[in-house]
């Protein structure tokens, strides 16, 4: 079996992730931050350790500014809905995922306005496009660090600089890059960073988080028990408690912690290097196959391990079905929950077949995928 769907969720996970989750479930999966017995305290301390490791990875000064969520979508909802109020204006890119677009669409019913910065997937990013969209009431800029459709990386450091100069809150959706590309919230002027746990960070599904810069005030999306300030009927205002009502996903977070430790141990540079070698091999192979259209930037710079293609006029759903059934290759076809990105690359009506590699893939995986694509392109579809 060859898994090339890491942009949706990574597989396999490092064995330490599974081992620690099992150990947690067997020995210390009590409620963290609620009781005083050793199981509960162990759970709490493991969760805190994860905050500290994430802080190291993203250069976050205070680990308590990281809030755990169930996925990146929840984090994006916390950030977007926690900041934007009626009459506010927000700027997004034309590569955004529905998890950014849909919460904003909902807010637009309450007098929030939105501008979309067009991204030319074949040209270098022009920051003037952002500057032109800024208004007096622009409160927030939200951009994806990398497209989940084309793999294109946006220059968040440059965008962050603009946001800082214009005193606009800068929020980055790192769904495709957390754990596999450089993220430094201080150097890149990121006020809010949202990340999933189950993709590049190698945690299990049901994990994710949001970093909120010190002093930035966001409304909470949910209120309830936090294990703190129980004498008060009002929601605590300190982070992470303010945003973490209800029991946390302890086995998930301890798994995420092991995933982050794996990244810290191997080093982000090594992970990028490995991914780059594989994607170079894949792209070079794709360019030699007739009838294959590669969408977006097909060079090696400023990209992730994600590539979207179509093969002639063959329906993308049939291609992925064939890849699965005949070649045991897992890829994802369709619109990838990113209508806006597909509109940008002109594939709204047909979708694409997306291959997403990560550092745990091998040359053999890529060779098999290329052979399968070649066979399909030559009409050898069953």
């Amino acid at each position, binding site marked *: 079996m060859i898994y090339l769907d890491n942009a949706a969720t990574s597989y396999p996970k490092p064995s330490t992730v599974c081992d620690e989750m099992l150990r947690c479930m067997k020995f210390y999966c009590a409620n963290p*931050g609620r009781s*005083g017995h050793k199981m509960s305290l162990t759970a709490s301390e493991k*969760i*805190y350790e994860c905050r*500290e490791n994430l802080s190291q990875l993203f250069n976050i000064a205070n680990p308590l500014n990281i809030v755990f969520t169930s996925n990146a979508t929840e984090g994006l909802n916390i950030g977007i809905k926690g900041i934007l109020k009626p009459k506010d204006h927000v700027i997004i890119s034309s590569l955004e995922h529905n998890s950014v677009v849909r919460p904003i669409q909902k807010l637009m019913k309450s007098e929030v306005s939105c501008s979309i910065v067009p991204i030319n997937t074949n040209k270098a990013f022009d920051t003037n496009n952002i500057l032109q969209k800024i208004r007096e009431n622009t409160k927030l800029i939200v951009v994806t660090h990398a497209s989940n459709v084309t793999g294109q990386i946006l220059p968040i450091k440059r965008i962050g600089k603009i946001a800082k100069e214009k005193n606009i809150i800068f929020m980055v959706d790192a769904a495709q890059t957390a754990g596999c590309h450089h993220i430094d919230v201080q150097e890149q002027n990121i006020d809010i960073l949202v990340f999933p746990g189950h993709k590049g960070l190698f945690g299990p599904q049901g994990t994710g988080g949001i970093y909120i810069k010190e002093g930035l005030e966001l409304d909470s999306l949910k209120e309830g028990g936090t294990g703190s300030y129980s004498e008060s009927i009002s929601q605590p205002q300190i982070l*992470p408690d303010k945003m973490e009502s209800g029991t946390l996903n302890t086995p998930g977070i301890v798994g995420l912690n092991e995933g982050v430790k794996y990244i810290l141990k191997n080093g982000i540079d090594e992970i990028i290097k490995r991914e780059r070698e594989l994607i170079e091999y894949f792209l070079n192979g794709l360019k030699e196959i007739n009838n294959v259209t590669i969408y977006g930037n097909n060079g090696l710079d400023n990209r992730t391990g994600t590539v979207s293609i179509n093969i002639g006029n063959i329906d993308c759903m049939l291609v992925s079905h064939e890849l699965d059934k005949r070649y045991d290759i897992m890829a994802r076809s369709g619109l990838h929950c990113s209508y806006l990105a597909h509109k940008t690359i002109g594939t709204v009506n047909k979708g694409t077949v997306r291959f997403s590699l990560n550092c745990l893939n091998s040359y053999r995986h890529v060779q098999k995928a290329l052979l399968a694509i070649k066979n399909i392109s030559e009409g050898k579809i069953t």
Partner: protein
Amino acid sequence: MKYNIMTFSSINPPSRLKRAASKKGMFVNIIRTPTSLSDKGCSYSIRYKEIDNDGLISLADNLKLNYRRIFKEQDKNNNEYIKLYDKLSDR
């Protein structure tokens, strides 16, 4: 051995303080705050050797960890503590 107790509102700040303290060779335990020392709510404290008091206060201040009060443990069996510091009245 004499011990002090530093109280917090939540599990998170003492978790941070415990890890930071251990890196500086100070051993602390996280405990549920005795009811008589808390504001009736569920809160957590660190319990540590009296000798580490200055070091831990300094560390907590450096990390901007919002502790509530500090007590000296007198007689646990009789619920006797001496308040050394109270954020509400001292700051």
